């Protein structure tokens, strides 16, 4: 069973993600609202995928945390964000994201982006990215 680490600063959204992922048959490796803790969890749990919010609690943002996690442990990272502007996409692009999920997300979008990040394992943006 593939494991997913959830990094999200909104408790309710994190709960929702955890429940939806469990229902879709994934193992949730951990949930945190902090980038620093995400790196520690990624090292301990070695998740198959990280779902990463861009805005996090604490000093480190999601893009930086994703860069470190990907560089150190090779876990693919999918960004979950309400941001849709080019600047954030550009910055997030440098950490080789394996997909984007725009908030508010749909379960179908979540399923597709997680599946494609896990199976194909190469960078791919969600359908909304280019507009």
């Amino acid at each position, binding site marked *: 069973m593939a494991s997913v680490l959830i990094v999200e600063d*909104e408790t*309710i*959204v994190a*709960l*929702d*993600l955890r*429940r*939806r992922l469990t229902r879709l048959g994934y193992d949730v490796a951990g949930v945190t609202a902090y980038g620093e803790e995400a790196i520690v969890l990624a090292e301990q749990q070695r998740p198959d995928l990280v779902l990463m919010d861009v805005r996090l609690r604490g000093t480190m943002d999601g893009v930086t945390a994703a860069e470190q996690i990907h560089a150190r442990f090779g876990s693919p990272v999918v960004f979950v964000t*309400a*941001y*849709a*502007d080019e600047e954030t996409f550009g910055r997030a692009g440098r950490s080789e994201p394996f997909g984007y999920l*725009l*908030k*508010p*997300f*749909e379960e*179908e979008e979540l399923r597709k982006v997680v599946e494609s990040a896990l199976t194909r394992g190469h960078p791919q943006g969600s359908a*909304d990215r280019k*507009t």
Partner: protein
Amino acid sequence: VLLLALVGLRLRTRQLRRASARLSRLVEERTRELQQSRDDLEKRVAERTTELEQDIAERKKTEQALVEREEQIRASLREKEALLKEIHHRVKNNLQIIISLLNLQAAHTKDPAILGAFAESENRVRSMALVHESLYRSSDLARVVLAPHVQRLCEHLYRCYGVDTRRIELRTTISDAALDLDRAIPCGLIINELVSNALKYAFPDGGKGSIHVKLDHSLDRYTLLVKDNGIGLPEGFDFRRADSLGLQLVCGLTEQIGGTIEYLRDGGSTFRIEFGA
């Protein structure tokens, strides 16, 4: 004769000397006058130059002040835009939280009717979120072009009701006109309700057909058509007095944007909503 000539010459010489002396005085006088007027002119030029220099200095100061003011205005505009983006972002985030809450709550029931009610509520929130999404991405942060958002909204509804576009074809023809937020959100919700109704009721028992959402605009009017070629509303059904929350929302929101609504039974159902630009 010689003497006469000599006397004449002397006379002439004296006359000439006098004339020459007069001329000299005249020249001197004229020179003095010229000198005077040159001095005057120089003085005036110097005065005017000082005046002009003061003028230029003042103008430069004003220009500098204008440039600074403009820079201030630009900076405050940039700040305002950033703040607006931040607000849209937060609104979207909050709408995500609402959707998550609905979804978490729905997980505690298995009753299909209740689940359906949750799904419909979620769709309404999502339709609002999509308008904010479009706004957030547009360069004009006060007005939104509905076209991309209507397509996404309908695609979402098809997925939500598990309908394939091969069974019920989807067409959206949306003018590229921009609407302000006060109309874009009700308009999105109206489309959400009417398309949901069509997907739920117009094609029973897996029937095939098509849904067409069309928004036209002329100089002063918008016309929104939501059209399907399904079975139509039941005979004698008054959509204005319907029990259905969806239709109540449609009528209420049409009124809210100062529009009119009519129902046409033309080989299916057509809702035609008009409102002022």
